[in-house]
């Protein structure tokens, strides 16, 4: 039988189109002709009766008869017959097309069937015969590769090759052979991970150094299948396939013949090049592709992963009767920790002895729960001989890769590092800062003299949440999902070190940049529990974990023995903890709310961390709220206490000021002159003894400055000064140099969300971050409030000056500089002068060029305008005034007669 080719079908379709178009055009033509004749006829009739003149009427009637004749002629046309004929032709063409389509469908279905059978056949042939006759299998594969199923066919030879490469003995083949076809139902995303393990498992079993039952790998795989089958309800298929494939082992060759004979029977030449057959896009001719449901399941699997599966080892090996009991016990233990997925506990049994293997798999809802379960129950004593060994499913891969032989670690040759403090030696003594806007993070020089920035380094997606400078400015830390990283270098930024800490939330450096503390807290699965806190302390230069802590927030604050048993929460230095604790807001200064209806007072107590001794406590009466402010050095602490008035209707605020560094921690009470004033903000002078309070209810509150010492007596709080009625609603970090100049900033840039002084106190940056929709960007001001430049950036997130380490100069040297300040400043002034000269020169040049360029445009436009003048006049009907007339202000005097009145004046003599 000769098959209809694609081109024939196309030709038929085209013919059908053409014929139908012909039919419609013909009908339309006849119809409009008739219409026209009729209208013409009618019109002539109408005009005919209007005319009275005889001669004309005769002439007209001649036209009339003619038109009537034409109309009749048209109506008599055998158009009906013609159109019917075309219609018949059309229907004939249509029937041909239908037949063709049917035929096509049939062929497709047949092809499909042959195709599937071939692939199945191929799979089994390859699996079984590959070790014996790999050559044939490869040839066969080449011959039968079908484009629509490439994914699967490619995959299966992959397995075969794995098996071959691992030199598995033939006795294992039947064991595996049923798995390969079922792998169709497990996702390719899993299989490539699992199968290499299968391949290398020979080595693993032999190595006694591994402490896990690696012979369980088959069962792991089985477990996967179990899980997948559950999800895709594909158990039935598995059984069928299993059955079928077992038989195919023997019947391989016969099947092949069968396919061929079947093909011959159906009249299909097996040498068809299947690549040449292409279905139209988006059309499957009603044949459901069995690839699709597999594909669908891939997606499902891909989302979940195996991070939430743990493997519990060292379980008792129990016979079938006790299976349920053990399962119940396990469920009880593990459901306390987190929510086990439905059917998430699976304990494989030996099919021969019907006993368990002594391990099980547990699947949690989240990886966090799984991790927690691993931590909590690893080493759990069920009884004396059964101590649980719990591992993450995903970790097995890692354990497998442990080499059998110990290899001495490679000694890296020493490479001298870059000078990480190169930026301090900038010729122009500029400062750097980092900004985050959109996806970009940039480090820039603040070139205030030229009123611009200069890019140092830019990187897209540098960090996943924020960036942070180390306290001395040596490193820039970025935060990622996997952990933190620090960057630095002489001229650019290279990654110096990475610190692994999944889902890290906060980081902080120790003041001398030696250690990095990373912090993350995880929502507990049980809402009653406190958040789980993970803290790691790394050595910055080696990225070694020096200390870590895992436990609840409560445990952390009291220094409980979380993490490794027997090691109490370590403290390097008290200073270290100030920073870390202050950052994470974990209360180590406790505030106990009032109990017992006010009889028992609220208490603020200061506890020293490593020793847990209470240093100082203070009782507070009728307190509604309490807030604490630490001075940056930890010298002072202010506790803001909101107290109820006697009527309990309103509150007033007082401050308890603790002097931490003095003996017995003396406490002073400070109350504002107007007790009912609302406190807007409170801030300590960094590293100083002064603080400021903004208070007041109206939009222009007062600012009070206090000092913790007076000139004569260091133990008294004194009021330094008061600023009345300033518009401010937040206090920003001040620089001790410019303590008093903080007021105008809010006025200058009232949208500003962040204010940052540069480390030298020369410039201040105000930034509008993306909390506002508009005007994102930052402004750089000089210390005396002059706007230097403005950089708008959309989606602006963060602005941070690069801190400077304390001066390397000795105090004597500093004093000397201070004495000879004039001499030094002269030099800098001269430099400034030069720069501004240069700048204005450049500016003038730039402007001149711009003007010239513009003039060129304008002259070009003028010329074309002149050229088009005549045409424009023509368009305007010759109106001459093409050019806009010059406007001139003419004074036109207009006399208006406003009022006329007659008055009779008495004539006086």
């Amino acid at each position, binding site marked *: 039988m000769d098959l209809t080719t694609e081109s024939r079908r196309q030709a038929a379709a085209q013919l059908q189109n053409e014929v139908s178009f012909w039919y419609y055009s013909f009908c339309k033509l006849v119809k409009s002709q008739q219409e026209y004749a009729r209208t013409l006829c009618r019109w002539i009739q109408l005009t005919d009766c209007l005319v009275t003149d005889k001669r004309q009427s005769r002439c007209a009637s001649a036209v009339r008869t003619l038109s009537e004749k034409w109309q009749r002629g048209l109506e008599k046309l055998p158009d009906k017959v013609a159109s019917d004929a075309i219609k018949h032709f059309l229907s004939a063409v249509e029937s041909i097309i239908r037949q063709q389509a049917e035929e096509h469908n049939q062929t497709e279905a047949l092809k499909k069937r042959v195709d599937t059978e071939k692939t199945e056949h191929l799979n089994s042939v390859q699996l079984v015969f590959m070790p014996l006759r790999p050559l044939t299998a490869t040839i066969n594969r080449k011959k039968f590769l079908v484009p629509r199923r490439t994914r699967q066919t490619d995959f299966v030879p992959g397995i075969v090759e794995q098996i071959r490469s691992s030199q598995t003995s033939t006795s294992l083949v039947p064991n595996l052979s049923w798995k390969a076809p079922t792998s169709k139902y497990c996702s390719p995303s899993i299989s490539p991970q699992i199968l290499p393990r299968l391949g290398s498992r020979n080595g693993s079993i032999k190595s006694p150094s591994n402490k896990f039952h690696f012979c369980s790998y088959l069962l792991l795989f089985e477990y996967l299948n179990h899980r997948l089958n559950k999800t895709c309800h594909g158990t039935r298929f598995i059984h069928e396939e299993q059955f079928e494939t077992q038989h195919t082992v023997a019947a391989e060759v016969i099947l092949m013949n069968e396919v061929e004979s079947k093909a011959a029977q159906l009249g299909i030449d097996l040498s068809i090049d299947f690549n040449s057959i292409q279905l139209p896009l988006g059309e499957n001719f009603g044949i459901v592709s069995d690839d699709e449901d597999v594909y669908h399941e891939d997606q499902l699997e891909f989302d979940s992963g195996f991070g939430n599966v743990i493997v519990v080892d060292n379980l008792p090996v129990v016979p079938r009767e006790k299976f349920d009991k053990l399962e119940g016990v396990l469920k009880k233990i593990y459901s306390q920790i987190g929510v086990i997925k439905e059917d998430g506990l699976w304990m494989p049994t030996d099919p021969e002895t019907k006993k368990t293997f002594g391990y099980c798999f547990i699947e949690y809802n989240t990886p966090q729960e799984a991790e927690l379960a691993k931590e909590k129950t690893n080493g759990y004593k069920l009884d004396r001989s059964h101590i649980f060994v719990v591992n993450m499913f995903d970790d097995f891969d890692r354990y497998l890769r442990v080499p059998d032989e110990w290899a001495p670690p490679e000694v890296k040759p020493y490479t001298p590092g870059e000078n990480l403090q190169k930026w301090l030696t900038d010729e122009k003594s500029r400062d750097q800062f980092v900004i985050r806007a959109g996806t970009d993070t940039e480090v820039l020089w603040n070139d205030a003299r030229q009123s611009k920035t200069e890019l140092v380094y830019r990187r897209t997606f540098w960090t996943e949440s924020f960036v942070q400078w180390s306290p001395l400015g040596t490193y820039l830390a970025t935060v990622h999902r996997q952990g933190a990283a620090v960057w630095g270098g002489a001229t650019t930024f290279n990654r110096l070190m990475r610190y692994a800490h999944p889902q890290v939330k906060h980081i902080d450096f120790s003041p001398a940049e030696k250690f990095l503390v990373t912090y993350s807290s995880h929502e507990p699965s049980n809402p009653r529990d406190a958040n789980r806190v993970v803290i790691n302390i790394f050595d910055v230069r080696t990225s070694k974990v020096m200390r870590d802590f895992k436990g609840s927030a409560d445990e952390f604050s009291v220094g409980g023995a979380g993490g490794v048993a027997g090691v109490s929460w370590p403290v390097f230095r008290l200073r270290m903890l100030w920073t870390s604790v202050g950052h994470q807001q974990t209360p180590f200064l406790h505030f106990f709310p009032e109990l017992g209806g006010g009889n028992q007072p609220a208490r603020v107590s200061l506890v020293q961390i490593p020793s847990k001794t209470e240093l100082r406590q203070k009782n507070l009466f009728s307190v509604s709220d309490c807030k604490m402010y630490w001075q940056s050095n930890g010298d002072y602490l202010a506790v803001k206490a909101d107290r109820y008035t006697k009527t309990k209707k309103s509150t007033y605020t007082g401050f308890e000021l603790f002097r931490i560094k003095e003996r017995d921690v003396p406490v002073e009470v400070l109350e504002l002159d107007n007790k009912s004033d609302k406190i807007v903000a409170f801030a300590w002078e960094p590293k100083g003894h002064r603080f400021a309070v903004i208070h007041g209810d109206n939009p222009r509150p007062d600012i009070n400055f206090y000092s913790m010492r007076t000139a004569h007596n260091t133990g008294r709080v004194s009021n330094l000064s008061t600023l009345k009625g300033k518009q401010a609603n937040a206090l920003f970090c001040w620089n001790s140099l410019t303590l008093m100049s903080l007021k105008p900033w809010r006025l200058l840039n*009232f*949208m500003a969300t962040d204010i940052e002084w540069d480390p030298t106190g020369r410039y201040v940056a105000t930034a509008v971050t993306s909390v*506002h*929709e*508009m*005007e994102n*960007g930052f402004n750089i001001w000089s210390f005396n409030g002059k706007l230097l430049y403005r950089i*708008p950036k959309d989606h602006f997130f963060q602005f941070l000056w690069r801190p400077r380490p304390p001066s390397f100069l000795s105090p004597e040297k500093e004093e000397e500089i201070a004495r000879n300040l004039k001499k030094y400043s002269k030099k800098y002034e001269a430099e400034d002068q030069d720069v501004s000269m240069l700048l204005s020169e450049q500016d003038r040049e730039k*402007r001149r060029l*711009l*003007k010239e360029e*513009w003039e060129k*445009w304008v002259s070009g*436009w003028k010329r*074309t*305008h002149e050229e*088009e003048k005549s*045409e*424009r006049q023509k*368009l*305007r*009907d010759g109106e001459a005034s093409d050019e*806009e007339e010059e*406007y001139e202000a003419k004074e036109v005097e207009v006399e208006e007669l406003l009022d006329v009145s007659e008055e009779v004046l008495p004539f006086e003599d």
Partner: protein
Amino acid sequence: MRPILMKGHERPLTFLKYNRDGDILFSCAKDHTPTVWFADNGERLGTYRGHNGAVWTCDVSRDSMRLLTGSADQTAKLWNVQTGTQLYTFNFGSPARSVEFSVGDKLASEESVLVIKGPQGRINRAVWGPLNRTIISAGEDAVIRIWDSETGKLLRESDKESGHKKTITSLTKAADGSHFLTGSLDKSAKLLDTRTLTLIKTYGTERPANAVAMSPLLDHVVLGGGHDASAVTTTDHRAGKFEAKFYDKILKEEIGGVKGHFGPINALAFNPDGKSFSSGGEDGYVRLHHSDPDYFNIKI
């Protein structure tokens, strides 16, 4: 000088147009009545009643006799400027966003002598090119296109790289039609050559540019805009940036700003003599500014 506040519209302003002599000013708003004012003192002369939808645009003939308005009621109407009578109504299948008399006042843009179809999204502005040979369109897809006005063929397209990134909201031609200025929601305005569509200048600003105008007298451009109207109530009027900002046309530097509106500026127009300009805002006011003498001596 103190601006003159003209309150005649109840809804946000959409368009402002001076006549050629610069003595009268036409304003269109989302209420349905275009209004005509004396451009000198802001006195209201009259209104044109008849539209049944927001009026998006208008144009006045060279001799100030005919007014053409385009409205969201899918019509454009031709009016007698003096009497306010409707002379003709053009019907369209969609709201008329832009109308303009051609050179010689015989054809109006957006007229069904020729229908141009093609671009995706709304066309916000369509104006005549030099000698009526081309039509320039700009709209939501942020692409400026030049069409042949005879055949309707697409002649040029602004390139994506240097062009606007968001909806183009306004387009004004220079007095001689040689170049034009576009304002876009991407917070920038661009100056382009009418014939070649070459990008000449870009003026950056901090807020969406809803309206743009070019001074016919000095090398100044004015950009008006502000926060999205829907967010106006949530922001301080200072934060909304409802200023009309003056820029130097050549140096692209900001000269100054004119504050006053308490909503985004939707329309800007310069008096053809260059000595006054008016702005219309989302707040429904038209503000007529006569420039101080200082303005003409600004040096940067």
